[in-house]
């Protein structure tokens, strides 16, 4: 147990009731934050897309329509929940929860603030700091596939099954690029703990933005992460899972009422979580300049500013996803697969190999000017060998441009 949460100073002493209480508070707050932010994100997304399409968007429920999502949720909650007669009932009921749990659990390891004191205990502002945090991200994003797959399979209906097959293929394909992109950061950070990764990106001077934050040192993985995360969350332009025009809604076709709402919630929760993880891994998490005219130990600098920086970065990333949604048409399925398998994975592997060689070379005092091209050349030779070894299909498949 002490190994799992060793670094959080909360667990340095004996585990007392107040420590337990702090943990419970953190879990509850994280859950509430995530739910509320999903509500606000869906509203904000609809507003921004409306702006981008020269519409007004939701403006009826609450000021500026901010309660629209809540109203939709309440409506869905009171709707009838039908289950098809051909459905596998226990699995059908279980699937929405399998979908939402990983989304929430993934958020638990994201540090949303600095080290603070709650009830006299010093602790990190994150639910859990696992020494294997990065692996946990991968595990949870992998588990999320089950919700979608089982939902489609247990519906006992054609279109959900097709949607589920598509999405499983898509999620598994991009899981590889996603993992390799994270690996790009882990090589730089040399730690799996999200807290360590954020600490390494701490704000010292204005140059930290370029020098310490990983988005420069892992620029290509950052791009690949954003693309792969968009695909993992089934967001446009990778929303083939719920291609309404083709699949009558996809894996959730047979779902109604609150179960449908939970899938919806999970999808948008995933988007927020992915943005939070991108912030943590590449954009320094909660690090950013504090208010210089206040003392370093001031409440504002310790509590407020890190949380504000984290929120601002996540919001910026969320805006980009909404922008993608408003701008790009859905990709064709073969192009989606081609992008994942033929481009993202190769580029990610290449980057990982070269940066790993550079990191090792730094320890060994090798000349980086020689190490980089040599390792890149080895990687490209290996690729070419593989490429030639794999038999091609008879017809020419149009490539992604």
């Amino acid at each position, binding site marked *: 147990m002490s190994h799992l949460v060793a670094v959080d100073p909360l667990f340095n002493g004996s585990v007392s009731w107040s420590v337990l209480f702090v943990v419970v508070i953190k879990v509850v707050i994280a859950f509430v934050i995530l739910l509320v932010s999903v509500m606000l994100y869906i509203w904000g997304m609809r507003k*921004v897309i*409306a*702006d*981008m*399409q*020269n*519409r*007004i*968007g939701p*403006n009826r429920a609450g000021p*500026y329509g901010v309660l629209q999502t809540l109203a939709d949720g309440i409506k869905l909650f009171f709707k009838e929940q039908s289950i098809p007669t051909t459905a596998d009932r226990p699995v059908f009921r279980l699937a929405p929860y399998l979908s939402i749990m990983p989304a929430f659990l993934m958020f638990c390891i994201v540090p949303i603030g600095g080290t603070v004191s709650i009830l006299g205990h010093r602790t990190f502002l994150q639910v859990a700091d696992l020494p294997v945090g990065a692996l946990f991200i991968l595990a949870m994003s992998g588990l999320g596939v089950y919700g979608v797959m089982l939902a489609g399979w247990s519906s006992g209906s054609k279109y959900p099954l097709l949607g589920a097959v598509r999405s499983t293929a898509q999620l598994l394909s991009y899981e590889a690029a996603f993992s390799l992109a994270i690996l790009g950061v882990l090589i730089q950070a040399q730690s799996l703990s999200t807290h360590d990764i954020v600490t390494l990106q701490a704000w010292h001077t204005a140059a930290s933005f370029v020098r310490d934050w990983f988005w420069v040192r892992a620029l290509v993985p950052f791009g690949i992460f954003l693309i792969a995360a968009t695909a993992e969350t089934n967001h446009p332009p990778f929303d083939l899972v719920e291609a309404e025009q083709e699949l009558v809604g996809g894996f959730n076709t047979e779902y109604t009422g609150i179960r449908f709402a939970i899938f919806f919630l999970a999808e948008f929760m995933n988007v927020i979580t992915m943005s939070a993880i991108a912030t943590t891994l590449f954009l320094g998490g909660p690090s950013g300049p504090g208010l210089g005219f206040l003392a370093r130990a001031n409440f504002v600098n310790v509590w407020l500013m890190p949380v504000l920086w984290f929120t601002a970065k996540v919001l910026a990333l969320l805006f980009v996803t909404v*922008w993608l949604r*408003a*701008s*790009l048409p859905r990709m064709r399925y073969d192009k989606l697969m081609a992008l994942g398998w033929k481009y993202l994975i190769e580029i990610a592997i290449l980057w990982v190999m070269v940066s790993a060689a550079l990191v090792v070379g730094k320890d060994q005092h090798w000349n980086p000017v020689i190490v980089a091209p040599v390792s890149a050349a080895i990687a490209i030779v290996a690729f070419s060998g593989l490429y030639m070894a794999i038999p091609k299909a008879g017809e020419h498949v149009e490539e992604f441009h």
Partner: protein
Amino acid sequence: MGRLSGFNVTLRQMFKPRLTTEYPKVKRHKPERQHGRHVLNRYEDGMEKCIGCELCAGVCPAHCIYVRGADNPVDDPVSPGERYGFVYEINYLRCIHCDLCVEACPTEAITETKLFEFSFTNRADAIYTKEELLVADDGRAQRMPWELWTGGEDDHTSAWMRATAAGGAAEYEGRVGWSGELGFGVRPPERGQSDLVPSQADTAPHFDESGPGH
């Protein structure tokens, strides 16, 4: 920009003013000849204009008008002449407000107001009878409880005819070729179409601009 220029397009839209009129809060000016709920007009002396000829029912593409004509009672005629419409019903569940009935009517008995905001909760309300369609003694349309009259909808009930000649011929433009109406008398022609200079025509439809709110 090439492939990425689409992002610029969507971003640019964010800073453009919205064109949406937020309908229940902001209502656009109704065009002069808007096709709305019908009225059955009466002459200045209170007599009904409808002669029960059923031309409106015949021309109606939605088959929503039902007319039965009858001989006028000798001692108490309803309309001048031989016949009158003793049943006149319009089913607003079917009416498409095409205005063909108004064009077909030989006596300008049926015209349309500009009222479109009326909704009913049962079939009986949706079928307007002659008693409901006839103008009141002041010459204005009767107001049903489920209708939303915001003012001005029945000011120029048959204005479309007065704007130009009844037959549409240019040489009759501006000349009175219609009968008087209860409460309004013989209305003068508003203006000939040739008076419409382009600048007026451009500014003719004006909008209630209370800001693009959102």
